[in-house]
């Protein structure tokens, strides 16, 4: 019997899965949604107040920051109520920090799947971001309530908000993929990630406006992509008084794109070996 390759519909050989990568991702799209759905379902199971946690965390952080930075340190508030100033930055920050943490740990916590089932590994870290997007939307509703309370109306800039949400997601993907892949081999990142996140809260202009930073340091400060994102969020939500610092913004966007490219490339380079080394 003379079989040729065309009669088979799956060929397994070195380097083959590499070529069908993006096809495979499309074929496994349902898995992606189910993973996200699972994480959403599981997140608040067996918690007494469930979804309320998504509200309590940002609200308490905002209160503390308002009191510490606004009342005690008396930092400038750019002419908007300090709680709104803080909250408009907390939105992207919390979205970033929780998704980054979850994405970094996602491969390790699903290690049994990695060693028993084939699917494009990219699905796991990426799907964790979806859950946090839900939390983000809940926080956004809180922000709307805050604005109603203070009779604060957003400017037309708010139409650009989806762009900055997207930019935040890209930042999470770039950094999260890189760290998730590193975490498989070097468990050191289990300790590095919480530290970075804790540290980042004070480095990023969450509790204060980035205008506090002296002009000559601004470009350097924008090397941190979160600075550009947070400024963008404030510009969208608070409007006119918050002029965007354009060179910094472009620098931040450039860094996000670089992170994303290197993150995906590194992830794809090492993902074939995940099952062997995890």
């Amino acid at each position, binding site marked *: 019997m003379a079989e040729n390759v065309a009669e088979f519909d799956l060929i*397994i050989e*070195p*380097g083959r*899965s590499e070529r069908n990568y993006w096809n495979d991702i499309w074929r496994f799209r349902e898995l992606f949604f189910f993973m996200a759905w699972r994480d959403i379902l*599981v997140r608040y199971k067996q918690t007494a107040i469930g979804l309320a946690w998504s509200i309590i965390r940002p609200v308490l952080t905002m209160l503390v920051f308002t009191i510490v930075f606004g009342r005690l340190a008396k930092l400038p508030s750019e002419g908007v109520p300090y709680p709104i100033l803080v909250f408009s930055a907390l939105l992207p920050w919390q979205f970033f920090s929780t998704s980054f943490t979850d994405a970094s740990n996602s491969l390790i916590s699903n290690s*049994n799947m990695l060693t*028993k089932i*084939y699917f494009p590994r990219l699905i796991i870290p990426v799907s964790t971001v979806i859950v946090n997007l839900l939390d983000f939307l809940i926080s956004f509703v809180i922000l709307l309530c805050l604005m109603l309370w203070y009779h604060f109306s957003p400017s037309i800039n708010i139409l650009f908000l989806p762009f900055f949400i997207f930019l935040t997601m890209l930042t999470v993907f770039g950094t999260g993929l890189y760290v998730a892949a590193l975490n498989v081999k070097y468990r050191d990142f289990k300790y590095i990630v919480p530290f970075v996140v804790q540290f980042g809260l004070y480095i990023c202009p969450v509790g204060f406006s980035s205008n506090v930073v002296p002009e000559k340091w601004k470009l350097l400060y924008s090397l941190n992509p979160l600075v550009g994102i947070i400024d963008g969020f404030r510009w969208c939500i608070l409007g006119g008084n918050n002029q965007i610092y354009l060179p910094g913004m472009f620098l931040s966007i450039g860094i996000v794109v670089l992170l994303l490219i290197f993150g995906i490339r590194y992830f794809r380079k090492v993902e074939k070996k995940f099952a*062997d080394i995890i």
Partner: protein
Amino acid sequence: MAIAIKVENVCKSYQITHKEERDVSFRETIIKNITEGFNKTKNLANRNSLLPAKKEEFKALQNLSFEVRQGERVGIIGRNGAGKSTLLKLLSRITEPTSGRISTKGRIASLLEVGTGFHPELTGRENIFLNGTILGMRRAEIKRKFDEIVSFAEIGKFLDTPVKRYSSGMYVRLAFAVAANLESEILVVDEVLAVGDDNFQRKCLGKMQQVSSEEGRTVLFVSHNMAAITKLCNKGILLNKGKVEVNSTIENVVDNYISTNFQNDLFILDENNDKEVYFQKIFLSRNSETPTNTFAFSDDIFCTFDIDSKEVIKDATLTFIIRDRNLSPLFSDHKPLSNYKGRLIAVIPKKILLPGKYYIQSMLHVPNVRFLDNNEDYINFTIEETGSKNSIYNTDLGFVNIPVLWQ
């Protein structure tokens, strides 16, 4: 019949490091890279001085080639480390081969573990959908098969209970039910039947037989349970050290496996053993002197264990297991060591084992902690029919003779 799986010259090797068995830490890699880069630029000869780790290639599979035709049920047999699991991992695309090619026709469903991706907090219903998707089913397909899955799993009213409250039996049943109802042309199963009770194992075997013979699906089945594998499969592949040793009918392969691996009637392990406590010699006899492997029903069986040791290990225990012809355990006994050098003799009283073929496996271990000497070579022995109560019957009446009291 068309070919469903074609494996050509497949090799898979792993890098194993001979330094210390621990995770590489990030610091080490950084230091290594820095020092290596540093040394390179200074062109120093003494590289690797920091990390004298020897890397060795371990070949899990070497030039493996075979073909499986559509509708065949192939049992894959081999000792631990023969490459069975690696082969299944390659087929399920979890890792890639180092070289060679595998071509398959039809969708492959691989069941390397029951309940992969099951989440304990989710209910049975939710897990059916999640696990189905993980195994590669479409949502519509799961919906169509849903009732069948639930009835096969016999979980009925617990459908909306989180699976963490399931008994382990229910858990396994549900997991297998999802996988078994997958519409795939090729089913790859690894040792899943080792879990679950007898009833369930029979049910799974039945289901696998059904999908293969009625629906013409191809099944690849790895197991250590020779009884199950002979019952389910019609072809077999015996792997040894990463190579195909025999590829034939299942009866031939099982016979070959058992006779090459479990035929020693007497064995002596070499004196320069690096184990702390080990068997020097194990043999069976009628009178504790002449080794033999044939006994009459009315013979006492003397199992002699000569033990030697380099040091005294606390709580070291000798355990032996008597296994039936399919290697299923019948009974076992244990003896904590009091003397670490010398001879121990266990006598299995006459008229306990019914005529037939048996194996004895013996090990030295610290119970539930670690193995000191666990030999995979079993000694086989035969009890001849010399007048047991079953001698007048033709049917299979079990293995053990118990003095039953009638009133």
